[in-house]
């Protein structure tokens, strides 16, 4: 499953986001998340991908930023790319 699909599944399971709006260039702010929602979102990402997202040095503006950060941290923290991963082709 692609990173985008896993993020999408996680978001749909935990938040009230419209499925068709979860695209790489969607601005995260457009979901109307408050600060606690953002902390939760990071928590669930960490759970889903078994990584630790450091508080500093991460700037998440759009969904593509989440994908990039996760894929970078997986390599940094696990020394390998995502298993069974077929990288999403981004327009």
């Amino acid at each position, binding site marked *: 499953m692609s990173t985008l699909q896993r993020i999408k599944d996680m978001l749909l399971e*935990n*938040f009230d986001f419209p499925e068709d709006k979860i695209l790489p260039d969607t601005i995260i702010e457009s979901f109307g998340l408050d600060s*606690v929602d953002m902390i*939760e979102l990071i*928590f669930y990402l*960490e759970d889903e991908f078994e990584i630790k997202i450091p508080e500093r040095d991460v700037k998440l503006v759009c969904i593509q930023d989440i994908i990039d950060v996760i894929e970078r941290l997986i390599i940094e923290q696990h020394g390998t790319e995502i298993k069974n991963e077929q990288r999403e082709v981004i327009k």
Partner: protein
Amino acid sequence: MRRVAVTGMGIISPMGNTSYNFFENLISGVPAVKRITGTFAPLLNVKIAAEADFDPTEHFPIKQIRTLDRTTQMALVAAKQAWSDSGIVIGDDEQKRAGVYMGTGLGGAQTIDSMLCSVYKDNVSRVNPLSVVKIMCNAPASHISLQYALRGPCLTFSIACASSAVAIGEAFRLIKFGQADVVVAGGTESMLTLSSMKSWESLGVLAREDDQNPAASCKPFSMDRSGFVLGEGAAVIILEEMERARARGARIYAELTGYGTTSDAHHITAPTVEGQSSAMRLALEEARMNPQDIDYINAHGTATEMNDLVETQAIKIVFGADCRIPVSSTKSMHGHLIGAAGALELIAAILSMQHKSIPPTANLKTPDPQCDLDYVPNQGRVGLNVRVVMSNSFAFGGSNAVLIARLV
């Protein structure tokens, strides 16, 4: 003097999830106590409880459920029932004169249990970021305030088994003394978790399971009583200044007229006749009523050896040694809802006026010569003129709270 009306009621309880079903089941006298269904049952010595038939997925979107402890979920549903039952509308200009007063003993017990389990047992280094806001004792009250835009005082009272009686009593005073016009008041508790059940078990206050019939395990005022059965649920009422309620043509279930609270200052668990009887007297004084005006007492009646004896003596001191007022312990049927108990039992007492019926003390088969009041044993009574009721709540810690309501 401003008067205080009860204009709405909501219930999630082991005996039913509407006030009508709840009272119907109480009068039938069949307890909701059962063998517990939790997977941890084998680890308990006392394997009985009064669980509420409450499925949060029937009331909340799946995404909201994970943000609320069961305690808050039940409180919100009970508040919603009470709110729509009252038909109340709060104008923008009234929001600051409307408050929320809730009681709870332990707060988000299920979240505490699962969080501690993951930290200590599974050695998980991170816990859910919503743990704090799910566990905190004021979460139920705050979510009710958020839901209905109530911007007056939003307070939570934690006085063990008297939590919601105190919440209602203090809410009554808030309106009576002019500091609010409407208060959503009540209590909520859901602590049927392994750690809290073990704690209660260890304290030795839980009823032994009845050999023949688990449902008959809680036997208040009976010679063979052995303690209470833990229950869970939420009970919420809408308190409203009388003239406001009348002006909008609200249905008025009852008028709250008296509240008495005292502290034994004696022992952390053992009750005193003096503390309990003083609380009853204070409530009568505030209500400007005589003992003989009371038509029914919903007892604290926990079925511990000590409570039932001391409560009986305290009632006799206030109402006379020859007191024949019906006194019943509905805990024999719905279990002990701890922080929600006072509110649920006040509702039971108010409904006994509405339905002209008195619910029984179930499982009272072997009278205790030292408990010799009229406990309405085993059979509810119908067709009675019940006009004034008293509800007793006595907490561990020695706090006593007594409420009086009357028909209007």
